[in-house]
């Protein structure tokens, strides 16, 4: 058993009278790679938002890193790639390096726009997602898959322990999707980052994830997958 990062118990959530999540419980352990799947409207994104505290459950409790969600403060440990990450103004005049560097804004030296330490961390994050060669490109000139890798680097720069992704590859071509999922795998296996990804396409996760959360009519079924790529059994 690894360290428990997320713990949910007796969790229910509904809009008006209809419960979309009905009394579920689960744990997410360090280094897990979890796929959340289900049909449209099966509250996959809602579950992510509950875990991160953007929505409050009607009943039940959620803990992040051992703290009750309401008391959790250490948001640097958490990375979130929302479904609409790529809905920015595509003519925004900013380079890949500026976008990734900006997420370290709390460590910014006021007078220098990007100081040396930040530059190094930015380049390391871009290296991890194989995008260093594009550091001076305008963000709007990249393809959808490349933009998504840049946004991933923007999360990595803060050294998160867990990354939540909500349908990261809608509108991205199949080949780039594979590149992206291989990359996520690398972050999970080599960097030890816990991954939680919402997707409607379970086939992309079969050889990579170690647990699949199926959401169906408010209920949760968990599949534990033995994955020889991971070299461990859960």
């Amino acid at each position, binding site marked *: 058993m690894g360290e428990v990062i997320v713990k949910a118990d007796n969790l229910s959530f509904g809009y008006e009278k209809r419960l979309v999540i009905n009394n579920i419980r689960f744990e997410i352990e360090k280094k897990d790679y979890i796929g959340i799947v289900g049909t449209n409207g099966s509250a996959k994104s809602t579950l992510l938002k509950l875990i991160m505290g953007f929505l409050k459950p009607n009943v039940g409790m959620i803990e992040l890193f051992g703290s009750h969600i309401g008391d959790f403060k250490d*948001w640097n440990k958490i990375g*979130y790639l*929302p479904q609409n*990450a790529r809905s*920015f*103004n595509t*003519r*925004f*005049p*900013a*380079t890949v390096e*500026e*976008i990734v560097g*900006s*997420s370290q*804004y709390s460590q*910014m030296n*006021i*007078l220098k*726009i990007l100081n040396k330490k930040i530059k190094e961390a930015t380049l390391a994050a871009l290296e991890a997602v194989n995008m260093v060669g594009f550091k*001076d*490109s*305008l963000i709007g*000139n990249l393809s959808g898959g490349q933009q998504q890798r840049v946004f991933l680097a923007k999360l990595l720069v803060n050294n998160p322990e867990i990354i939540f992704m909500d349908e990261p590859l809608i509108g991205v071509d199949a080949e780039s999707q594979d590149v992206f999922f291989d990359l996520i795998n690398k972050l999970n296996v080599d960097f030890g980052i816990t991954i939680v990804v919402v997707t409607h396409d379970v086939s992309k996760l079969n050889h990579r994830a170690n647990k699949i959360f199926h959401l169906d009519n408010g209920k949760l079924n968990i599949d534990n997958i033995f994955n020889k790529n991971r070299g461990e059994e859960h």
Partner: protein
Amino acid sequence: MTDIFSYPFMQRALLIGIIISIISSSMGLFLVLRRFSMVGDTLSHTALAGVALGMITNTYPFYTAIVTTLAASVIVEKLRKEYKEYAELSLAIVMAAGIGIASLLISIGKNKTIGIMNYMFGSISLVTEEDLKIVLFLGAIIISIILFLFRALFYITFDESDAKLRGIPVSKLNLLFAMLVAITITLSMRIVGILLVSSMMTVPVATSIQVAKSFKQAFIYTNIFGVLSVTLGLITSFIFDVAPGGSIVTISLLLLLLVIILKKLYGKLVKKATNLLDGGVYNEQNI
């Protein structure tokens, strides 16, 4: 030509002009990229009401205008939250209020508000020593705040909801920013004129994003185009004895036109050269 700079009022106007062009271009970059460029227009119309109020009550119009624009900036931000899905509605409401109250005050004031034309289209000769002191003082404060908050403003501008997730106090910064815009407009109206203030916040940005290859470049170019427009505009205004607001805006529009034409020509040249070198393979991203 060299005589221009020997007049104290012209020296004052140029110094004020350069400062206001730097602050309004810098604020304008963030406003335009957040698709909020009409804020300038809205707040400047409420400044008109403030100026009329000052004239009627025999108060220095700058002070009354700063009060009305600051109040308007707070109201815009409040209404923006109220009408989340219709952000521009907050601007339309406040603008209507500004013009409505201004026209009432102007007609009530009769003879007292005759001088309002100078505030509507700008004037160089009426710039006083007091104006200069105010602009130097508030201009320095605004520039320092922009530099201090540069990264956070960039973050909010690129992705406001992500900035909220990261714990950046977005609502407070939005309010502070709207208030800075209000002050910038009041500072600028003496020279550029109320009706043209917002163009100082938008046209240099439009020119700069034609050529900028990074946010840093966009910021620098916006300031260069802004300062160039104001300096050349003021000189033109002096030589041809026309309202400075009009000449400044005309110059800034000519710069925009020039940059667009040069960019198109450059694009065609690159296309031709690439065609020659690569035997017809043309990659748009290389422009």
